[in-house]
Protein backbone atom coordinates (compact mmCIF):
# COMPACT_ATOMS: atom_id res chain seq x y z
CA UNK A 1 0.00 0.00 0.00
CA UNK A 2 1.34 3.32 -1.07
CA UNK A 3 0.04 6.70 -0.01
CA UNK A 4 0.41 8.03 -3.55
CA UNK A 5 -2.21 5.56 -4.70
CA UNK A 6 -4.84 7.49 -2.81
CA UNK A 7 -6.26 10.88 -3.37
CA UNK A 8 -8.34 12.92 -0.99
CA UNK A 9 -11.09 14.96 -2.53
CA UNK A 10 -14.05 16.86 -1.33
CA UNK A 11 -16.19 16.91 -4.39
CA UNK A 12 -17.83 13.96 -6.04
CA UNK A 13 -19.64 13.29 -9.28
CA UNK A 14 -23.00 13.53 -7.53
CA UNK A 15 -22.05 16.86 -6.01
CA UNK A 16 -20.99 18.27 -9.40
CA UNK A 17 -24.20 17.10 -11.03
CA UNK A 18 -26.19 18.54 -8.12
CA UNK A 19 -24.37 21.87 -8.42
CA UNK A 20 -25.16 22.00 -12.13
CA UNK A 21 -28.82 21.17 -11.51
CA UNK A 22 -28.96 23.74 -8.72
CA UNK A 23 -27.58 26.41 -11.06
CA UNK A 24 -30.18 25.60 -13.71
CA UNK A 25 -32.97 25.54 -11.10
CA UNK A 26 -31.78 28.87 -9.76
CA UNK A 27 -31.93 30.44 -13.23
CA UNK A 28 -35.46 29.11 -13.72
CA UNK A 29 -36.47 30.44 -10.31
CA UNK A 30 -34.96 33.86 -10.98
CA UNK A 31 -37.10 34.03 -14.10
CA UNK A 32 -40.26 33.13 -12.15
CA UNK A 33 -41.87 36.59 -12.47
CA UNK A 34 -42.09 35.90 -16.22
CA UNK A 35 -43.60 32.44 -16.00
CA UNK A 36 -45.34 32.04 -12.64
CA UNK A 37 -48.67 33.36 -11.48
CA UNK A 38 -49.01 35.78 -8.59
CA UNK A 39 -50.26 33.19 -6.12
CA UNK A 40 -47.46 30.78 -7.05
CA UNK A 41 -44.85 33.47 -6.62
CA UNK A 42 -46.22 34.35 -3.21
CA UNK A 43 -46.11 30.70 -2.17
CA UNK A 44 -42.58 30.27 -3.48
CA UNK A 45 -41.48 33.44 -1.71
CA UNK A 46 -42.82 32.06 1.53
CA UNK A 47 -41.13 28.73 0.83
CA UNK A 48 -37.74 30.44 0.38
CA UNK A 49 -38.13 32.30 3.66
CA UNK A 50 -39.03 29.08 5.50
CA UNK A 51 -36.06 27.39 3.86
CA UNK A 52 -33.83 30.16 5.21
CA UNK A 53 -35.26 29.88 8.72
CA UNK A 54 -34.89 26.09 8.64
CA UNK A 55 -31.29 26.27 7.40
CA UNK A 56 -30.42 28.72 10.16
CA UNK A 57 -32.13 26.69 12.87
CA UNK A 58 -30.35 23.60 11.59
CA UNK A 59 -26.99 25.35 11.86
CA UNK A 60 -27.72 26.09 15.51
CA UNK A 61 -29.36 22.84 16.57
CA UNK A 62 -27.80 20.36 14.17
CA UNK A 63 -24.24 21.63 14.30
CA UNK A 64 -23.77 23.84 17.35
CA UNK A 65 -26.06 21.81 19.62
CA UNK A 66 -27.97 24.97 20.51
CA UNK A 67 -31.55 23.73 20.42
CA UNK A 68 -33.63 26.88 20.49
CA UNK A 69 -37.39 27.03 20.67
CA UNK A 70 -37.21 30.81 20.71
CA UNK A 71 -36.10 31.81 17.23
CA UNK A 72 -39.39 33.68 16.87
CA UNK A 73 -37.67 36.28 19.08
CA UNK A 74 -35.47 37.28 16.14
CA UNK A 75 -38.09 36.82 13.45
CA UNK A 76 -40.37 39.19 15.34
CA UNK A 77 -37.54 41.53 16.25
CA UNK A 78 -36.51 41.81 12.60
CA UNK A 79 -40.10 42.40 11.53
CA UNK A 80 -40.57 45.12 14.11
CA UNK A 81 -37.24 46.72 13.19
CA UNK A 82 -38.41 46.94 9.58
CA UNK A 83 -41.58 48.72 10.70
CA UNK A 84 -39.81 50.95 13.23
CA UNK A 85 -36.96 51.98 10.94
CA UNK A 86 -39.20 52.75 7.97
CA UNK A 87 -42.15 54.31 9.81
CA UNK A 88 -40.33 56.15 12.58
CA UNK A 89 -36.80 56.37 11.14
CA UNK A 90 -37.74 57.13 7.55
CA UNK A 91 -35.32 54.58 6.12
CA UNK A 92 -35.76 52.87 2.77
CA UNK A 93 -37.19 49.35 3.35
CA UNK A 94 -34.15 47.68 1.76
CA UNK A 95 -31.78 49.58 4.03
CA UNK A 96 -34.02 48.77 6.96
CA UNK A 97 -33.77 45.02 6.22
CA UNK A 98 -29.99 45.18 6.36
CA UNK A 99 -30.14 47.34 9.48
CA UNK A 100 -32.50 44.81 11.09
CA UNK A 101 -29.78 42.20 10.64
CA UNK A 102 -27.17 44.38 12.32
CA UNK A 103 -29.50 45.22 15.19
CA UNK A 104 -30.44 41.55 15.51
CA UNK A 105 -26.77 40.68 15.93
CA UNK A 106 -26.29 43.45 18.49
CA UNK A 107 -29.26 42.44 20.65
CA UNK A 108 -28.31 38.77 20.46
CA UNK A 109 -24.99 39.43 22.20
CA UNK A 110 -26.33 40.24 25.69
CA UNK A 111 -29.03 37.58 25.19
CA UNK A 112 -26.38 34.96 24.43
CA UNK A 113 -24.27 35.93 27.43
CA UNK A 114 -27.31 35.43 29.63
CA UNK A 115 -28.91 32.27 28.25
CA UNK A 116 -25.66 30.43 27.54
CA UNK A 117 -25.66 29.87 31.29
CA UNK A 118 -28.46 27.39 30.73
CA UNK A 119 -27.65 23.96 29.36
CA UNK A 120 -29.34 21.63 26.96
CA UNK A 121 -33.08 21.57 27.31
CA UNK A 122 -33.09 24.41 29.80
CA UNK A 123 -31.33 26.52 27.19
CA UNK A 124 -34.25 25.75 24.89
CA UNK A 125 -36.86 27.02 27.32
CA UNK A 126 -34.63 29.99 28.16
CA UNK A 127 -34.75 31.06 24.52
CA UNK A 128 -38.53 30.88 24.72
CA UNK A 129 -38.50 33.20 27.75
CA UNK A 130 -36.43 35.68 25.72
CA UNK A 131 -38.98 35.52 22.90
CA UNK A 132 -41.77 36.20 25.41
CA UNK A 133 -39.84 39.17 26.80
CA UNK A 134 -39.49 40.53 23.25
CA UNK A 135 -43.19 39.99 22.54
CA UNK A 136 -44.35 41.66 25.75
CA UNK A 137 -41.90 44.53 25.28
CA UNK A 138 -43.00 45.29 21.71
CA UNK A 139 -46.63 45.08 22.84
CA UNK A 140 -45.82 48.00 25.18
CA UNK A 141 -44.58 50.30 22.39
CA UNK A 142 -47.57 52.39 21.42
CA UNK A 143 -45.76 54.05 18.49
CA UNK A 144 -45.77 50.60 16.82
CA UNK A 145 -49.42 49.92 17.59
CA UNK A 146 -48.97 48.29 21.00
CA UNK A 147 -50.75 44.99 21.42
CA UNK A 148 -52.81 45.29 18.24
CA UNK A 149 -49.89 46.03 15.93
CA UNK A 150 -49.76 48.19 12.82
CA UNK A 151 -49.72 48.12 9.04
CA UNK A 152 -46.95 49.36 6.81
CA UNK A 153 -48.05 52.74 5.35
CA UNK A 154 -48.74 52.81 1.63
CA UNK A 155 -46.02 55.41 1.01
CA UNK A 156 -43.33 53.11 2.35
CA UNK A 157 -44.62 50.15 0.37
CA UNK A 158 -44.61 52.27 -2.78
CA UNK A 159 -41.06 53.49 -2.12
CA UNK A 160 -39.97 49.91 -2.85
CA UNK A 161 -41.27 50.05 -6.42
CA UNK A 162 -44.15 51.99 -7.89
CA UNK A 163 -45.90 49.23 -9.85
CA UNK A 164 -47.60 46.33 -8.15
CA UNK A 165 -46.08 43.69 -10.45
CA UNK A 166 -42.61 45.08 -9.90
CA UNK A 167 -43.14 45.14 -6.15
CA UNK A 168 -44.24 41.54 -6.11
CA UNK A 169 -41.31 40.49 -8.27
CA UNK A 170 -38.90 42.39 -6.03
CA UNK A 171 -40.37 40.81 -2.91
CA UNK A 172 -39.99 37.38 -4.55
CA UNK A 173 -36.39 38.02 -5.59
CA UNK A 174 -35.53 39.24 -2.11
CA UNK A 175 -36.87 36.00 -0.65
CA UNK A 176 -35.04 33.89 -3.23
CA UNK A 177 -31.87 35.92 -2.69
CA UNK A 178 -32.16 35.47 1.07
CA UNK A 179 -32.50 31.69 0.73
CA UNK A 180 -29.51 31.46 -1.63
CA UNK A 181 -27.48 33.75 0.61
CA UNK A 182 -28.30 31.79 3.77
CA UNK A 183 -27.69 28.33 2.27
CA UNK A 184 -24.44 29.48 0.64
CA UNK A 185 -23.27 31.24 3.81
CA UNK A 186 -23.96 28.17 5.95
CA UNK A 187 -22.26 25.92 3.39
CA UNK A 188 -19.15 28.09 3.21
CA UNK A 189 -19.10 28.52 6.98
CA UNK A 190 -19.20 24.76 7.51
CA UNK A 191 -16.34 24.28 5.06
CA UNK A 192 -14.23 26.85 6.87
CA UNK A 193 -11.95 26.36 9.85
CA UNK A 194 -14.72 27.53 12.17
CA UNK A 195 -17.07 25.04 10.56
CA UNK A 196 -14.63 22.22 11.18
CA UNK A 197 -14.47 23.26 14.82
CA UNK A 198 -18.25 23.29 14.92
CA UNK A 199 -18.51 19.81 13.41
CA UNK A 200 -15.99 18.57 15.97
CA UNK A 201 -18.09 20.04 18.77
CA UNK A 202 -21.18 18.40 17.35
CA UNK A 203 -19.51 15.01 17.26
CA UNK A 204 -17.91 15.19 20.68
CA UNK A 205 -17.87 18.32 22.76
CA UNK A 206 -15.42 16.99 25.32
CA UNK A 207 -12.91 15.82 22.71
CA UNK A 208 -13.25 19.06 20.76
CA UNK A 209 -12.55 21.07 23.90
CA UNK A 210 -9.47 19.03 24.68
CA UNK A 211 -8.12 19.73 21.18
CA UNK A 212 -8.12 23.41 22.00
CA UNK A 213 -11.38 24.49 20.39
CA UNK A 214 -12.98 27.34 22.27
CA UNK A 215 -16.47 25.86 22.56
CA UNK A 216 -18.18 28.83 24.13
CA UNK A 217 -16.79 31.23 21.53
CA UNK A 218 -17.68 29.00 18.57
CA UNK A 219 -21.25 28.57 19.79
CA UNK A 220 -21.47 32.27 20.56
CA UNK A 221 -20.46 33.18 16.99
CA UNK A 222 -23.02 30.76 15.58
CA UNK A 223 -25.73 32.18 17.81
CA UNK A 224 -25.01 35.80 16.89
CA UNK A 225 -24.69 35.13 13.14
CA UNK A 226 -27.88 33.04 13.16
CA UNK A 227 -29.71 35.77 15.03
CA UNK A 228 -28.60 38.42 12.55
CA UNK A 229 -29.77 36.38 9.56
CA UNK A 230 -33.00 35.37 11.31
CA UNK A 231 -33.78 39.04 12.00
CA UNK A 232 -33.24 39.85 8.31
CA UNK A 233 -35.52 37.00 7.29
CA UNK A 234 -38.06 38.29 9.81
CA UNK A 235 -37.92 41.72 8.19
CA UNK A 236 -38.51 40.09 4.78
CA UNK A 237 -41.41 38.02 6.11
CA UNK A 238 -43.20 41.10 7.39
CA UNK A 239 -42.35 43.06 4.27
CA UNK A 240 -44.41 40.39 2.46
CA UNK A 241 -47.19 40.45 5.03
CA UNK A 242 -47.30 44.29 5.28
CA UNK A 243 -48.85 43.98 8.72
CA UNK A 244 -47.34 43.15 12.08
CA UNK A 245 -48.68 42.41 15.56
CA UNK A 246 -46.91 41.01 18.62
CA UNK A 247 -48.79 37.71 18.48
CA UNK A 248 -48.04 37.14 14.78
CA UNK A 249 -44.46 38.36 15.01
CA UNK A 250 -43.51 36.23 18.00
CA UNK A 251 -45.61 33.17 17.21
CA UNK A 252 -43.92 30.02 18.46
CA UNK A 253 -45.97 27.85 16.10
CA UNK A 254 -45.27 29.76 12.90
CA UNK A 255 -41.59 30.58 13.33
CA UNK A 256 -40.29 27.77 15.49
CA UNK A 257 -42.57 24.71 15.56
CA UNK A 258 -42.88 24.53 11.76
CA UNK A 259 -39.18 25.21 11.32
CA UNK A 260 -38.24 22.45 13.76
CA UNK A 261 -40.58 20.00 12.01
CA UNK A 262 -39.07 20.92 8.65
CA UNK A 263 -35.53 20.25 9.86
CA UNK A 264 -36.38 17.06 11.75
CA UNK A 265 -38.35 15.58 8.88
CA UNK A 266 -35.78 16.60 6.26
CA UNK A 267 -32.74 15.54 8.25
CA UNK A 268 -31.05 17.43 11.04
CA UNK A 269 -27.34 18.16 10.84
CA UNK A 270 -27.17 18.21 7.05
CA UNK A 271 -27.48 21.07 4.58
CA UNK A 272 -29.71 19.03 2.29
CA UNK A 273 -32.15 18.17 5.10
CA UNK A 274 -33.82 21.58 5.51
CA UNK A 275 -34.25 21.86 1.73
CA UNK A 276 -36.02 18.50 1.49
CA UNK A 277 -37.94 19.22 4.69
CA UNK A 278 -39.20 22.55 3.34
CA UNK A 279 -40.45 20.90 0.15
CA UNK A 280 -42.19 18.14 2.14
CA UNK A 281 -43.65 20.66 4.56
CA UNK A 282 -45.14 22.80 1.80
CA UNK A 283 -46.42 19.75 -0.06
CA UNK A 284 -48.16 18.57 3.13
CA UNK A 285 -49.46 22.04 3.84
CA UNK A 286 -50.91 22.55 0.38
CA UNK A 287 -52.70 19.19 0.51
CA UNK A 288 -53.74 19.04 4.17
CA UNK A 289 -54.19 22.70 5.14
CA UNK A 290 -57.98 22.41 4.76
CA UNK A 291 -57.99 20.04 7.70
CA UNK A 292 -57.01 22.90 10.02
CA UNK A 293 -55.88 21.67 13.42
CA UNK A 294 -55.79 18.04 12.26
CA UNK A 295 -53.03 19.04 9.90
CA UNK A 296 -50.91 20.28 12.80
CA UNK A 297 -51.56 17.06 14.71
CA UNK A 298 -50.47 15.04 11.65
CA UNK A 299 -47.33 17.16 11.39
CA UNK A 300 -46.54 16.60 15.07
CA UNK A 301 -47.05 12.84 14.73
CA UNK A 302 -44.87 12.68 11.60
CA UNK A 303 -42.10 14.60 13.38
CA UNK A 304 -42.23 12.30 16.42
CA UNK A 305 -42.21 9.16 14.28
CA UNK A 306 -39.27 10.45 12.22
CA UNK A 307 -37.37 11.41 15.37
CA UNK A 308 -37.85 7.93 16.85
CA UNK A 309 -37.60 5.72 13.78
CA UNK A 310 -35.25 7.67 11.50
CA UNK A 311 -33.56 10.33 13.64
CA UNK A 312 -31.48 11.50 10.68
CA UNK A 313 -34.59 12.34 8.70
CA UNK A 314 -35.37 11.74 5.05
CA UNK A 315 -31.98 12.87 3.84
CA UNK A 316 -30.25 10.69 6.43
CA UNK A 317 -32.02 7.63 5.05
CA UNK A 318 -31.10 8.55 1.46
CA UNK A 319 -27.52 9.31 2.36
CA UNK A 320 -26.92 6.11 4.26
CA UNK A 321 -28.36 4.08 1.41
CA UNK A 322 -26.63 5.75 -1.54
CA UNK A 323 -23.61 7.42 0.12
CA UNK A 324 -24.53 10.78 -1.33
CA UNK A 325 -23.52 14.24 -0.29
CA UNK A 326 -24.77 17.02 -2.53
CA UNK A 327 -23.11 19.79 -0.57
CA UNK A 328 -19.61 18.36 -0.18
CA UNK A 329 -18.50 19.08 3.37
CA UNK A 330 -16.52 15.99 4.28
CA UNK A 331 -13.46 14.57 2.57
CA UNK A 332 -13.39 11.26 0.75
CA UNK A 333 -10.41 9.03 0.27
CA UNK A 334 -10.27 7.56 -3.23
CA UNK A 335 -8.09 4.90 -4.61
CA UNK A 336 -6.37 5.82 -7.87
CA UNK A 337 -3.94 4.02 -10.19
CA UNK A 338 -3.27 0.30 -10.06
CA UNK A 339 -2.53 -0.95 -6.62
CA UNK A 340 -0.70 -4.19 -6.13
CA UNK A 341 -2.81 -5.49 -3.38
CA UNK A 342 -4.88 -4.19 -0.53
Amino acid at each position, binding site marked *: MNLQDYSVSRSSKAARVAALLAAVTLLVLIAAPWWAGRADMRLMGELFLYLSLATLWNLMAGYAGLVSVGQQAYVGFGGYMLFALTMLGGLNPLVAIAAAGVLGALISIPVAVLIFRLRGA*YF*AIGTWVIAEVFRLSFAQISALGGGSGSSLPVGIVKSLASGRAMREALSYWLALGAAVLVVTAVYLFLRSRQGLALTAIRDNELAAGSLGIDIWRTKFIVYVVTSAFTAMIGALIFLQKLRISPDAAFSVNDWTAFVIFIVVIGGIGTIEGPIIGTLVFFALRETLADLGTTYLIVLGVVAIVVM*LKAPKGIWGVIRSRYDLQLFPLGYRVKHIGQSKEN
Partner: protein
Amino acid sequence: MEWLNAIVQGTLLGGLYALFAAGLSLIFGVMRLVNIAHGDLIVLAAYLGLTVTTATGMHPMAALVIVVPAMALIGYALQRGLLNQTLGDDILPPLLVTFGLSVIIQNGLLEVYTADPQTLNAGALETASVAVGGVALGILPLLTFGIAIAVIWGLQWTFYHTALGRAFRAVSDNQDIAQLMGLNRRHIFGLAMALALGVTAIAGILLGIRTSFDPSIGGGRLIFGFEAVIIGGLGNLWGTLVGGVILGVAQTIGAKIDPGWQLLAGHIAFLVILAVRPNGLFPRVSG
Protein backbone atom coordinates in the same frame (compact mmCIF):
# COMPACT_ATOMS: atom_id res chain seq x y z
CA MET B 1 -50.75 48.70 52.49
CA GLU B 2 -51.42 48.28 48.80
CA TRP B 3 -47.87 47.12 48.27
CA LEU B 4 -48.09 44.73 51.19
CA ASN B 5 -51.26 43.41 49.61
CA ALA B 6 -49.45 42.93 46.28
CA ILE B 7 -46.65 41.04 47.99
CA VAL B 8 -49.02 38.79 49.91
CA GLN B 9 -51.12 38.02 46.83
CA GLY B 10 -47.96 37.39 44.83
CA THR B 11 -46.70 34.98 47.46
CA LEU B 12 -49.93 33.01 47.32
CA LEU B 13 -49.81 33.03 43.51
CA GLY B 14 -46.31 31.59 43.86
CA GLY B 15 -47.91 28.47 45.32
CA LEU B 16 -49.61 27.80 41.99
CA TYR B 17 -46.37 28.36 40.08
CA ALA B 18 -44.58 25.99 42.44
CA LEU B 19 -47.19 23.37 41.56
CA PHE B 20 -46.54 24.00 37.84
CA ALA B 21 -42.86 23.56 38.56
CA ALA B 22 -42.91 20.56 40.90
CA GLY B 23 -43.69 18.02 38.18
CA LEU B 24 -41.10 19.53 35.86
CA SER B 25 -38.50 19.44 38.63
CA LEU B 26 -39.35 15.87 39.61
CA ILE B 27 -38.91 14.34 36.16
CA PHE B 28 -35.76 16.34 35.51
CA GLY B 29 -34.38 15.10 38.82
CA VAL B 30 -35.15 11.45 38.13
CA MET B 31 -34.41 11.10 34.41
CA ARG B 32 -32.90 14.41 33.24
CA LEU B 33 -35.87 14.88 30.95
CA VAL B 34 -37.20 18.35 30.27
CA ASN B 35 -40.76 18.04 29.14
CA ILE B 36 -41.69 20.84 26.72
CA ALA B 37 -45.26 19.55 26.75
CA HIS B 38 -45.54 20.08 30.52
CA GLY B 39 -47.60 23.26 30.18
CA ASP B 40 -49.97 21.60 27.73
CA LEU B 41 -50.39 18.68 30.12
CA ILE B 42 -51.41 21.17 32.84
CA VAL B 43 -54.03 22.55 30.45
CA LEU B 44 -55.09 19.00 29.54
CA ALA B 45 -55.69 18.33 33.25
CA ALA B 46 -57.83 21.46 33.48
CA TYR B 47 -59.92 20.26 30.53
CA LEU B 48 -60.27 16.80 32.02
CA GLY B 49 -61.53 18.54 35.15
CA LEU B 50 -64.01 20.45 32.98
CA THR B 51 -65.29 17.25 31.41
CA VAL B 52 -65.64 15.51 34.77
CA THR B 53 -67.42 18.43 36.43
CA THR B 54 -69.84 19.01 33.57
CA ALA B 55 -70.56 15.29 33.16
CA THR B 56 -71.10 14.47 36.82
CA GLY B 57 -71.85 17.85 38.39
CA MET B 58 -69.03 17.31 40.88
CA HIS B 59 -67.20 20.18 42.54
CA PRO B 60 -63.83 20.75 40.78
CA MET B 61 -61.91 19.95 43.96
CA ALA B 62 -63.81 16.65 44.24
CA ALA B 63 -63.01 15.96 40.58
CA LEU B 64 -59.38 15.62 41.65
CA VAL B 65 -60.28 12.12 42.79
CA ILE B 66 -60.78 11.22 39.12
CA VAL B 67 -58.41 13.61 37.33
CA VAL B 68 -55.31 12.85 39.40
CA PRO B 69 -55.38 9.06 38.77
CA ALA B 70 -56.32 9.68 35.13
CA MET B 71 -53.33 11.98 34.59
CA ALA B 72 -51.07 9.58 36.45
CA LEU B 73 -52.20 6.80 34.14
CA ILE B 74 -51.59 9.00 31.09
CA GLY B 75 -48.15 9.81 32.50
CA TYR B 76 -47.20 6.17 32.95
CA ALA B 77 -48.44 5.23 29.49
CA LEU B 78 -46.71 8.23 27.90
CA GLN B 79 -43.41 7.42 29.54
CA ARG B 80 -43.43 3.71 28.74
CA GLY B 81 -44.96 4.05 25.32
CA LEU B 82 -43.08 7.07 24.01
CA LEU B 83 -40.67 9.00 26.18
CA ASN B 84 -38.54 6.06 27.36
CA GLN B 85 -37.50 5.59 23.74
CA THR B 86 -36.00 9.08 23.66
CA LEU B 87 -33.76 8.85 26.68
CA GLY B 88 -30.03 8.76 26.19
CA ASP B 89 -27.04 11.04 25.99
CA ASP B 90 -28.42 13.04 23.10
CA ILE B 91 -30.69 15.83 24.31
CA LEU B 92 -32.32 16.33 20.93
CA PRO B 93 -34.79 13.39 20.82
CA PRO B 94 -36.56 14.09 24.15
CA LEU B 95 -36.69 17.78 23.37
CA LEU B 96 -38.14 17.39 19.91
CA VAL B 97 -40.51 14.57 20.81
CA THR B 98 -41.98 16.50 23.74
CA PHE B 99 -42.17 19.55 21.50
CA GLY B 100 -44.14 17.53 18.96
CA LEU B 101 -46.30 16.22 21.79
CA SER B 102 -46.98 19.78 22.86
CA VAL B 103 -48.28 20.68 19.40
CA ILE B 104 -50.38 17.50 19.29
CA ILE B 105 -51.99 18.08 22.71
CA GLN B 106 -52.64 21.74 21.98
CA ASN B 107 -54.35 21.07 18.67
CA GLY B 108 -56.13 18.00 20.00
CA LEU B 109 -57.66 20.17 22.73
CA LEU B 110 -58.60 22.76 20.11
CA GLU B 111 -60.36 20.06 18.12
CA VAL B 112 -62.30 18.67 21.07
CA TYR B 113 -63.01 21.77 23.19
CA THR B 114 -62.66 24.64 20.63
CA ALA B 115 -60.72 27.80 21.36
CA ASP B 116 -63.38 29.30 23.66
CA PRO B 117 -62.03 30.19 27.11
CA GLN B 118 -63.42 27.97 29.85
CA THR B 119 -63.39 28.03 33.62
CA LEU B 120 -64.07 25.46 36.31
CA ASN B 121 -66.99 26.58 38.43
CA ALA B 122 -66.08 26.16 42.09
CA GLY B 123 -69.02 28.14 43.48
CA ALA B 124 -68.42 30.04 46.72
CA LEU B 125 -64.78 28.93 46.89
CA GLU B 126 -63.87 31.28 44.05
CA THR B 127 -64.79 34.46 45.91
CA ALA B 128 -64.56 33.57 49.61
CA SER B 129 -61.94 35.47 51.58
CA VAL B 130 -60.77 36.19 55.09
CA ALA B 131 -59.41 39.53 56.32
CA VAL B 132 -56.07 39.29 58.06
CA GLY B 133 -54.65 42.57 59.39
CA GLY B 134 -56.32 44.68 56.73
CA VAL B 135 -55.36 42.41 53.82
CA ALA B 136 -58.11 40.31 52.31
CA LEU B 137 -56.84 36.80 51.63
CA GLY B 138 -58.76 34.69 49.14
CA ILE B 139 -59.58 31.23 50.44
CA LEU B 140 -58.68 29.71 47.07
CA PRO B 141 -55.16 31.24 46.90
CA LEU B 142 -54.60 30.24 50.54
CA LEU B 143 -55.78 26.72 49.77
CA THR B 144 -53.52 26.63 46.67
CA PHE B 145 -50.52 27.68 48.70
CA GLY B 146 -51.32 25.14 51.38
CA ILE B 147 -51.67 22.41 48.75
CA ALA B 148 -48.35 23.45 47.19
CA ILE B 149 -46.61 23.09 50.56
CA ALA B 150 -48.30 19.75 51.17
CA VAL B 151 -47.41 18.45 47.68
CA ILE B 152 -43.77 19.47 47.97
CA TRP B 153 -43.54 18.03 51.46
CA GLY B 154 -45.13 14.85 50.16
CA LEU B 155 -42.68 14.62 47.25
CA GLN B 156 -39.73 15.23 49.57
CA TRP B 157 -40.99 12.57 51.93
CA THR B 158 -41.51 10.12 49.05
CA PHE B 159 -38.00 10.82 47.81
CA TYR B 160 -36.21 10.30 51.09
CA HIS B 161 -38.37 7.93 53.13
CA THR B 162 -39.90 5.36 50.80
CA ALA B 163 -38.66 2.47 48.71
CA LEU B 164 -40.02 4.21 45.62
CA GLY B 165 -38.04 7.36 46.48
CA ARG B 166 -34.91 5.26 46.95
CA ALA B 167 -35.49 3.79 43.50
CA PHE B 168 -35.93 7.30 42.06
CA ARG B 169 -32.67 8.44 43.61
CA ALA B 170 -30.89 5.30 42.48
CA VAL B 171 -31.84 5.63 38.80
CA SER B 172 -31.10 9.35 39.02
CA ASP B 173 -27.57 8.67 40.31
CA ASN B 174 -26.68 5.88 37.93
CA GLN B 175 -29.16 4.20 35.64
CA ASP B 176 -26.99 1.24 34.73
CA ILE B 177 -26.04 0.28 38.26
CA ALA B 178 -29.62 0.74 39.43
CA GLN B 179 -30.61 -1.66 36.66
CA LEU B 180 -27.98 -4.16 37.84
CA MET B 181 -29.42 -3.94 41.35
CA GLY B 182 -32.70 -5.24 40.04
CA LEU B 183 -34.58 -2.03 39.37
CA ASN B 184 -36.38 -1.80 36.07
CA ARG B 185 -35.58 1.75 35.11
CA ARG B 186 -38.28 1.88 32.45
CA HIS B 187 -40.87 1.08 35.10
CA ILE B 188 -39.32 3.53 37.59
CA PHE B 189 -39.35 6.29 34.96
CA GLY B 190 -42.97 5.46 34.25
CA LEU B 191 -43.81 5.81 37.94
CA ALA B 192 -41.92 9.10 38.15
CA MET B 193 -43.88 10.48 35.20
CA ALA B 194 -47.11 9.19 36.75
CA LEU B 195 -46.31 10.99 39.99
CA ALA B 196 -45.31 14.15 38.10
CA LEU B 197 -48.54 14.21 36.11
CA GLY B 198 -50.53 13.51 39.27
CA VAL B 199 -49.09 16.76 40.63
CA THR B 200 -49.75 18.40 37.26
CA ALA B 201 -53.41 17.36 37.58
CA ILE B 202 -53.69 19.24 40.88
CA ALA B 203 -52.01 22.27 39.29
CA GLY B 204 -54.35 22.11 36.30
CA ILE B 205 -57.53 21.99 38.41
CA LEU B 206 -56.39 24.87 40.63
CA LEU B 207 -55.45 26.87 37.53
CA GLY B 208 -58.85 26.20 36.01
CA ILE B 209 -60.67 27.43 39.13
CA ARG B 210 -58.49 30.51 39.43
CA THR B 211 -58.55 31.80 35.86
CA SER B 212 -60.09 31.03 32.51
CA PHE B 213 -58.08 28.77 30.24
CA ASP B 214 -57.94 27.85 26.56
CA PRO B 215 -55.80 25.35 24.60
CA SER B 216 -53.13 27.92 23.71
CA ILE B 217 -51.95 28.84 27.21
CA GLY B 218 -49.77 25.77 27.83
CA GLY B 219 -46.53 27.39 26.68
CA GLY B 220 -46.93 30.22 29.16
CA ARG B 221 -47.53 27.79 32.05
CA LEU B 222 -44.43 25.80 31.07
CA ILE B 223 -42.39 29.00 31.17
CA PHE B 224 -43.66 29.97 34.64
CA GLY B 225 -42.86 26.52 35.98
CA PHE B 226 -39.46 26.54 34.32
CA GLU B 227 -38.63 29.98 35.75
CA ALA B 228 -39.60 28.84 39.23
CA VAL B 229 -37.33 25.79 38.87
CA ILE B 230 -34.34 27.82 37.69
CA ILE B 231 -34.81 30.61 40.24
CA GLY B 232 -35.00 28.10 43.07
CA GLY B 233 -32.08 26.01 41.83
CA LEU B 234 -32.22 22.73 39.94
CA GLY B 235 -33.18 19.68 41.95
CA ASN B 236 -34.32 21.53 45.05
CA LEU B 237 -38.08 21.26 45.58
CA TRP B 238 -38.30 23.74 48.46
CA GLY B 239 -36.18 26.08 46.36
CA THR B 240 -38.77 25.67 43.62
CA LEU B 241 -41.45 26.92 46.03
CA VAL B 242 -39.29 29.96 46.81
CA GLY B 243 -38.76 30.43 43.06
CA GLY B 244 -42.51 30.33 42.49
CA VAL B 245 -43.06 32.90 45.23
CA ILE B 246 -40.39 35.24 43.81
CA LEU B 247 -41.98 34.95 40.39
CA GLY B 248 -45.48 35.52 41.78
CA VAL B 249 -44.42 38.56 43.81
CA ALA B 250 -42.55 40.05 40.83
CA GLN B 251 -45.69 39.65 38.72
CA THR B 252 -48.11 41.21 41.20
CA ILE B 253 -45.72 44.10 41.89
CA GLY B 254 -45.26 44.58 38.13
CA ALA B 255 -49.03 44.57 37.67
CA LYS B 256 -49.32 47.16 40.44
CA ILE B 257 -47.00 49.51 38.54
CA ASP B 258 -48.74 48.97 35.19
CA PRO B 259 -51.10 46.14 34.21
CA GLY B 260 -49.12 45.58 31.01
CA TRP B 261 -46.03 44.86 33.07
CA GLN B 262 -47.34 41.87 34.98
CA LEU B 263 -45.77 39.08 32.91
CA LEU B 264 -42.78 41.14 31.82
CA ALA B 265 -41.83 41.86 35.45
CA GLY B 266 -41.82 38.12 36.20
CA HIS B 267 -39.58 37.35 33.22
CA ILE B 268 -37.24 40.20 34.12
CA ALA B 269 -36.94 38.95 37.70
CA PHE B 270 -36.01 35.55 36.26
CA LEU B 271 -33.39 37.02 33.90
CA VAL B 272 -31.87 39.14 36.69
CA ILE B 273 -31.51 36.07 38.92
CA LEU B 274 -30.07 34.12 35.99
CA ALA B 275 -27.49 36.90 35.50
CA VAL B 276 -26.58 37.17 39.17
CA ARG B 277 -26.95 33.55 40.33
CA PRO B 278 -26.79 31.32 37.23
CA ASN B 279 -27.36 28.18 39.31
CA GLY B 280 -30.41 29.60 41.04
CA LEU B 281 -30.71 30.51 44.68
CA PHE B 282 -30.45 27.04 46.22
CA PRO B 283 -28.87 24.65 43.69
CA ARG B 284 -28.70 20.97 44.55
CA VAL B 285 -27.66 19.25 41.30
CA SER B 286 -25.78 20.53 38.28
CA GLY B 287 -27.73 20.79 35.08
